């Protein structure tokens, strides 16, 4: 088990145009390490800074302070092209909300990261992930024809089909019923264990903690460990 992704003293400061304090920290001085083969769950109330931290870890939001390391690479020390290549090849990000490209079918959406990298994409692997997530019958469906839960699972399949070193999932069970919640969490845990990926799950759902090796809590932008050990 090796450390894959490491955050050192990450902070993100925002400025408000109104209000008493004209600047505030969405995330303050957060340090975190994600190891291969482990599931880390980050919990906390709405607005506590979980998504902001995940975006900084994903190379999508430049931190005000601190560094993110992927292996030996300083993520924010890369130029845009190299950072984009890194996101495409090594990070599988499942964002909150809708993330489908409306003009592509479900299968095309799942193959898109590979095609952006100039590869054809492994259709069989994509279909296996779709089957694992219970959406194998939706290959040719357009996003407009899918339910919220199906779109979530499509986004998860897309991240998994990238075969990344790190999976960063923001509320992956948000639109799912209990059965699919269990299915998704199981798939994420299994890919960590069998494929050696580092998985971070940001969730409100306390059920997610059952699948975690490490649980962190965020409160007012500050990160603290909640426990280490799960049902694994």
């Amino acid at each position, binding site marked *: 088990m090796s450390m894959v992704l490491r955050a050192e003293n990450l902070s993100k400061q925002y400025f408000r145009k109104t209000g008493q304090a004209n600047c505030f920290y969405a995330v303050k001085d957060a340090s975190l390490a994600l190891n291969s083969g482990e599931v880390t769950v980050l919990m906390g109330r709405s607005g506590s800074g979980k*998504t*902001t931290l995940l*975006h*900084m870890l*994903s190379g*999508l*939001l*430049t931190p005000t302070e601190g560094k993110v390391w992927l292996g030996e690479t300083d993520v924010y020390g890369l130029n*845009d*092209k190299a950072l*984009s*290549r890194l*996101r*495409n*090849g090594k990070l599988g*990000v499942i*964002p*909150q*909300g*809708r*993330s*489908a*490209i*409306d*003009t*592509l079918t479900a299968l*095309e959406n799942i193959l*898109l*990261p590979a*095609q*952006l*990298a*100039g590869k054809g994409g492994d259709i069989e692997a994509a279909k296996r992930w779709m089957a694992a997530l219970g959406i194998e019958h939706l290959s040719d469906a*357009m996003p407009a024809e899918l339910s919220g839960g199906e779109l979530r699972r499509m986004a998860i399949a*897309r991240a998994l089909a990238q075969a990344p070193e790190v999976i960063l999932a923001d509320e992956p069970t948000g639109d799912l019923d209990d059965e699919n919640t269990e299915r998704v969490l199981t798939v994420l845990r299994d890919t960590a264990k069998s494929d050696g990926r580092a998985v971070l799950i940001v969730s409100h759902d306390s059920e997610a903690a059952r699948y975690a090796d490490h649980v962190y809590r965020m409160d007012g932008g500050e990160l603290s460990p909640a426990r280490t050990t799960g049902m694994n």
Partner: protein
Amino acid sequence: MGTGKLPIKNLLRKPGRTCALVLLTAFLALAVFGGSVVVRSLRGGLNSLEARLGADIIVVPGEMASKVDLKELFLQGTVGEYYMKASALDKVREVEGVEIAAPQTYLTSLKADCCAVKVQIIGIDPGVDFTVKPWIDRSLSRDLGDMELAVGCKVSTGVGENLRIYDRSCRVVAKLAETGTGFDTAVYCNMDTMKTLLAAAEEKGIVHRLTSDNGDRISAIYVKVAPGYDVSDIEVRLAAHVRKTKTVRTRTMITDVSESLAGIARTVSLLAVAVWALAFVVLLIAFAMMIAERRREFAVLRLLGTSRGGLTGLILTETALCSLAGGLLGVGVASLAVFPFTTLIESRLGLPYLTPSTGTVLALAGTTLLVTLLVGAIASAFAAWRLSRVDPGTTLREGA
């Protein structure tokens, strides 16, 4: 990171959005291409007419001035049946400073009168003519003989074929270049042929103002002023010396029309610029709105590994395809609206109208497409640049 066929899929699978952008750019291209072709055609017509008229002064019967607008007559090239005595030609030649005086006699025929087409018959004196003969010389190295014709470009009969006029067979020996005026449907013959045709018309019971009894009458005298003489002075002398006639200075006529044409060209150009400015602003807003609407989609593409450059490339490719389709549509519609109706435009405007050569039309079409692409690229590049300034994470949060 390449976006591959994504731009094509985006355009084809969002037909409403694509059609709106294509129609907007088509409107832009239509205004520019159509306007440019019309202005060029007017300029070309005028230049060609100026070259064809050749004369410094034209002397016409005095009755004509009160009946028709001389400018319209010569600019549209629609001759009428008006005559003066042939002695007017001798009078003109008597005036000092007149280098050459060449007569022309006009006869109009209805289609039913003579042949398969309605023609204007213009009799010239090949021995002295300097207005039509140079154009005939380009395809015929000798003077027009009896019962021989030089025909305007719009007369369908070809060189070497016969054209029947009043049951008389005339041989076409030359075809003239296009002027964009009624002269393009005229047939030119020598004065003897003109008299023969006139007699033939009378045999068929067709009455013209010109008859074989007064067949030596003429319709116009084209005057070339000798070097060193002032054209205005000669015009005054002609007016004083040759009675019951009207003199027209071709340069003044052409200049007047050139000025009014310049006015038309300015108006058309201003309208085109206004349309472009308006369309540019509308395109800018349309692209900004389209990109704002698709912010989340673009943020997802960034998340999946598309670089800023790749995203800009995607947006520019989509825009270029829309602009190209719109440009081609606009040029196509403008072509359908302008080229089949040149005769109608010519008669409505009352000005010589000569469609530019195929090469010039293609160059105008190419320029229109290029500018349409450029406007689309500038409009979308600005929106793409604004988009690239924002972290994808911020956009994803906003839309979550």
